[in-house]
C-alpha cells in the first residue's frame, strides 16, 4: 500500500477510520476481556471451594500454557485448531446462521482426509512430492466433505424451515456415531487393537520447522492464519461477504437488495463446513496421523463457538481468541498431568466465558463507562 496509489491509501484510511469510529469494536474488546477475567475468577473460586489451592492452580495454568517450549508448542497446536474451527463458526454466525455443527463437520472432514490419503497413496509416488500432493488432495477432500455435511442442515433450514441449531447438533451426534462405527469396523486398520484407521504414510506430514513437537507444525498454524486472511477479505471486501453479513444483520434488507436468502444460507453453511473440514484435515494430519473414535478427539468444534463469540464473530478477532483458548486447553493438559484439579474445570470456565459474553448489558450496568454507548437500543 504505497502513497503512489491514492485510491488504495484512501481505502486504508477509510478502513482505519471505520474501526476507530466503530465504538462497538472497542466495546467488544472490553466485554471479551471482562468476560474472560470474570470467568477465570469464578473458576478460581470453584477451585478454592473444591478444596484446592487457587494460587497454585493459577501458577499451573501459566506454566502449562507458556512454561517451556513444549508448553508453547502445545498452546500453538490447540490455537491452530481453535482458530480454524473458530473461523468456521464466525463465518456462519456473522451471516446469522447458527452452525453448532462444526464439531461434526470437523470429524467428517478429518476422517475423509485420512481415508482419501490412504486410498490415493498407492496411486502416487512416495516422497515429498507425493506427500504434498496427498496433503493437498486430502485437505481438498476434507473441505468438500465438511462443506457437504454442513450444506445438508443449510438446505433443511433454507427450504424446510428446520432450525439449524438443533439439526446441526443432531448431525454432530450422527457424525460421531457413524464415524465411530466406521473406525471400529469397516475402516479399522488391519490388526489394530484400538478402533483406529491405518496410519497415513510417514512422508505425508507437515514439516515441524520451528518446534520440535510431534503434533505441532508451524505450517499448520500458517494454514490457519491464511484461512483467517482469506475469510476476512471475503467478508469485508467482496459482494458475497457483503450479502452474507447483511443477511446476518437484517434479513429483509438483504432480500430487498437482491440477496437470495435461501441460497445465502446454504452458501454460508457450506463455506463454514468447508473451513471446519480443513480444520479436521489439519487435526488428522498434524496431530493424529490416523483417525480414531471421534468421541475422543476433543471438542474443538464446540469450543470454537466460544472462540467465535469471544471474538464477536470477527474472523480477525478469532486469532487472539483462539490463542487464549489454546493456552487454556494447553494449561488443562498440563494440569491434568501435574495436579489433581480436574481438567473439566477448564471446560466449565469456557462455558462461563460464553455466558458472560452473551450478556454485555451485565458489564454496561455493573461497570458503567462513558463513551462506549454505540450500540444502545
Amino acid at each position: 500500500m504505497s502513497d503512489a496509489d491514492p485510491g488504495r491509501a484512501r481505502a486504508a484510511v477509510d478502513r482505519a477510520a471505520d474501526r476507530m469510529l466503530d465504538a462497538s469494536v472497542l466495546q467488544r474488546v472490553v466485554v471479551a476481556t471482562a468476560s474472560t477475567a470474570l470467568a477465570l475468577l469464578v473458576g478460581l473460586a470453584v477451585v478454592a471451594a473444591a478444596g484446592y489451592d487457587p494460587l497454585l492452580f493459577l501458577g499451573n495454568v501459566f506454566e502449562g500454557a507458556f512454561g517451556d517450549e513444549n508448553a508453547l508448542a502445545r498452546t500453538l497446536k490447540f490455537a491452530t485448531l481453535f482458530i480454524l474451527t473458530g473461523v468456521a463458526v464466525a463465518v456462519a454466525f456473522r451471516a446469522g446462521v447458527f452452525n453448532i455443527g462444526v464439531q461434526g463437520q470437523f470429524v467428517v472432514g478429518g476422517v475423509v482426509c485420512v481415508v482419501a490419503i490412504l486410498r490415493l497413496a498407492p496411486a502416487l509416488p512416495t516422497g515429498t512430492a507425493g506427500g504434498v500432493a496427498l496433503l493437498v488432495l486430502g485437505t481438498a477432500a476434507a473441505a468438500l466433505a465438511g462443506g457437504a455435511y454442513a450444506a445438508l442442515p443449510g438446505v433443511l433450514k433454507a427450504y424446510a424451515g428446520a432450525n439449524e441449531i438443533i439439526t446441526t447438533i443432531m448431525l454432530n451426534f450422527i457424525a460421531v456415531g457413524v464415524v465411530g462405527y466406521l473406525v471400529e469396523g469397516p475402516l479399522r486398520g488391519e490388526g489394530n487393537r484400538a478402533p483406529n484407521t491405518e496410519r497415513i504414510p510417514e512422508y505425508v506430514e507437515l514439516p515441524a520447522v520451528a518446534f520440535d513437537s510431534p503434533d505441532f507444525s508451524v505450517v499448520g498454524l500458517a494454514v490457519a492464519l491464511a484461512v483467517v486472511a482469506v475469510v476476512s477479505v471475503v467478508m469485508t471486501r467482496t459482494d458475497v461477504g457483503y450479502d452474507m453479513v447483511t443477511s446476518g444483520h437484517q434479513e429483509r434488507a438483504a432480500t430487498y437488495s437482491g440477496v437470495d436468502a435461501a441460497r445465502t444460507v446454504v452458501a454460508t453453511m457450506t463455506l463454514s463446513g468447508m473451513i471446519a473440514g480443513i480444520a479436521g484435515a489439519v487435526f488428522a494430519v498434524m496431530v493424529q496421523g490416523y483417525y480414531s473414535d471421534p468421541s475422543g478427539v476433543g471438542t474443538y468444534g464446540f469450543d470454537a463457538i466460544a472462540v467465535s463469540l469471544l471474538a464477536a464473530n470477527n474472523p480477525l478477532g478469532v486469532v487472539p481468541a483462539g490463542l487464549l483458548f489454546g493456552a487454556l486447553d494447553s494449561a488443562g493438559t498440563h494440569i491434568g498431568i501435574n495436579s489433581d484439579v480436574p481438567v473439566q474445570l477448564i471446560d466449565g470456565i469456557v462455558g462461563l466465558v460464553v455466558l458472560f459474553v452473551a450478556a454485555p448489558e451485565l458489564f454496561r450496568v455493573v461497570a458503567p463507562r462513558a463513551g462506549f454507548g454505540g450500540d444502545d437500543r
Partner: protein
Amino acid sequence: MSVTDYAAENRVRVGSAAALVVLVAAAAVALDLLVEAIVTVGFVERALQAATPIALAAIGGLYAEKSGVFNIGLEGFMVFGAANAAAVTWLLGGGSPSQADLWLAILAAVLISVAYAVVFAVLTVRYEADQIVAGLAVWFVGLGFGPFTAVVLWGSRNSPSIASVNDLTVPVLSAVPVVGRILFDASPLVLLTAVLAVAAWVVLYRTRYGYWIQAAGENPEALDTAGVNVARVRYAAVIFSGAMAGLGGAVLLAHAGSFIGTGDTMVNGRGWIGIVAYLFGSYNPLGAAAAALLFGGLDMLQIQFQTAGIDLPNRLVNLFPYVAVVVVLTFWGSTRMPAAVGEPYESEE
C-alpha cells in the same frame, strides 16, 4: 385448548404421526420382523422411562418459550440435574443409599437447578443476554462442571453404581395383564411425569397464569398494558423450565443408577431432543409428552432389536432418535414460534 381442538388444529401433524406408525408396522410385517418380539410390555415400560426425562425438559422448555424466552440451555440444566442428583445421593448415603436418600437428592437437584435458572433468568430477562448464546453457555458450563463434580467426588468422570429408583407396585392392579405392568408396576417418576404433563396443560390453558405466559411470549406490550408485570411472568417461566430440566436430569440418573460424565455425558442430547419434542408437540404440554414418548421408544429400540435377533451395529441403532429429530424438523420444522421469542421487553415506565 382441548385435546380435540389440538387434534383438529394439528390434523396434518397427528395424521402423519399416525401414518408413520402404520408405515412402520407395515414394514415390519412385510419384512417379517418379529413385531411381538419388538413391541413388548417391557419395551413400553422402557420407552416410558426413556421418554420421562425428555418430556420433563420439553414441558419446561415450552413454558419458557411460550413466555418469550428461548431456553436453549435445557441440555445443560439436565446435565446439572443428573450430576447434582448423583452427588447428593452419594453425599447422603455413600455407596449404599436408601430410596429416601435418592428422593431427597432428586429434590435437592431440582432446587439447585432453580438457583442456576435464576441466574440464567436474570441474565436473559434483566440483562437482555442473547438467549441463544446464553443457552449454549449453560450447556458448556454443564458439560464442564457436571463431570468436574464427578471427578472431585469419585476421581473419575463416571460415578460408581449408586442407586436407582424402585418401581411403585400397586397390589392387585399390577396383576392386570399388560396395563397392570405398565401403569401399576412402574417407576413412580414416570407417573409423576404424567401428572406434571397434565398439570402443565391445565395451568397453561385454564388458569390466568397460563394466559399471562402466552401473552408474554406473543405480545408482551398487551400484557403490560393489562397491568401484569411481563418480567415477572418470564422469570417464573424460565425458572420453571430450569427446574423441570433439572428434574429431567435427576430422573435420568434415578433410572440409570449411576452418573456418566464422559463424552456428552449421560444426558447425551436429550435436552435438545426435548426442544424438538415440544416443537413437534406444537408447544402443547400433552403433545410434547407424546412426542417425547416417540423419541423414548426410538431410544429403546436397540434392546428390542437385540432380543429380536436383528443384527444392527449398536452405534448405528443408537442414532435413531437423532435421525428422527432431523426428519421431524425437516417435515414439521416451520412451526410457528411465539411472536416475541428472543426479544427482551422493557416496560416504558
